[in-house]
């Protein structure tokens, strides 16, 4: 039951976020799909005891691959899909709790949580960059880019 809930809400939330960011209307469905895939993967890993940071890396890596697929297929910039995908992973809740602990003078917990939020946003970026690098390696090995490099 929870998983169905999560699938539906993550799809709607990701698509709604693309509207907030003025994304193209024709890509709303795919954006929702990318967001859903990423979030469900993260959710399943996290509830099964995988470390949050590792779960985030894996999820954002998958999001980036899905985004690149859609971007290539529909000839739109990758960022449109990847933004929708990563938004649910952004450590908003942890950052909020960190801030709250700061206000309540619990500095130990606050620094703890802030470091965690930083680690997670770093791992989102690592996941994205990783898949981009792999994508580039694959493309370069096909010797497609040599033509563009000549001038």
């Amino acid at each position, binding site marked *: 039951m929870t998983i169905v809930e999560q699938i539906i*809400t993550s799809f709607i939330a990701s698509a*709604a*976020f693309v*509207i907030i960011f*003025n994304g193209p209307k024709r890509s709303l469905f795919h954006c929702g799909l990318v967001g859903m895939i990423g979030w469900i993967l993260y959710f399943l890993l996290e509830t099964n005891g995988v470390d949050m940071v590792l779960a985030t890396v894996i999820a954002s890596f998958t999001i980036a691959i899905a985004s690149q697929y859609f971007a290539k297929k529909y000839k739109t*910039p990758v960022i449109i899909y990847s933004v929708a995908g990563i938004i649910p992973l952004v450590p*908003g809740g942890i950052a*909020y709790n960190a*801030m709250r602990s700061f206000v309540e003078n619990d500095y130990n917990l606050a620094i703890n949580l802030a470091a965690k939020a930083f680690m997670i946003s770093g791992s989102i*970026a690592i996941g994205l960059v990783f898949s981009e690098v792999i994508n580039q390696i694959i493309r370069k090995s096909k010797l497609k880019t040599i033509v563009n490099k000549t001038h």
Partner: protein
Amino acid sequence: MEMEKQETYDIMAVCLLAGKIMLQSGAETYRVEDTMMRIASSFGAYQSHPYVTPTGILFSVEGNEPTKTKLIRIVERTTDLEKVAQVNGISRRISAGEFTIEEAYKELKKIGESGSPYSVWIHVLAAAVSSGCFLIMFQGEWRDFFPAFITGGLGFLSLMYFHQLVPIKFFSEFSASLLIGLQALFFVTTGIGGELDKIIIGSVMPLVPGLLITNAVRDLMAGHLISGLAKGADAFLTAFAIGAGIAVIFSFF
């Protein structure tokens, strides 16, 4: 000779306009630089050096004549992915040789002046819906869905309103999150809402600078150190504004 000079300036104008629209709409630094270089080289300026930071673009074109350089300032930054996609499409068509310089400039100008594809109310509705959905994603109860829906929607509306009133990002974000905190407190004290924390987290998600944080780290990794640091500072300021707004509520609560 005179003719060629004019042309270089025209090429630069097209590239800078494209870069400006993309940067203002939230494209990544490398994408802006890449697009500008591609446009320049498809119009025959093979040696071009764009230098892009979040607050300005420096662009110079080398050729037979002395190198020409231009700088433009970027003041207003929003997120408008539709425009990024459109400029990207134009750049593709320029590379394919479908446009003359003048046509490209006109086309880009049209994109730059076009408004958002969605109305304000659609934006507010989207913010409201996503707030409610985030509440569920963060393991909130269904009875809190409605409070989060209202709080997130009104919070986002107030963000846009305050931003129009005072064009300082920090204040509009601070005031919006203050309002979100107040509303969440209202719902919880009247017994309509259950968990204060969950409602607030769900509702501030539309304000959270997730895109900026991630872009900042990516820029840093790609070696765009200035852009990365600037975006990081921007994101930190936003996060701080949101945190401070909520913190004020807690200090009274």
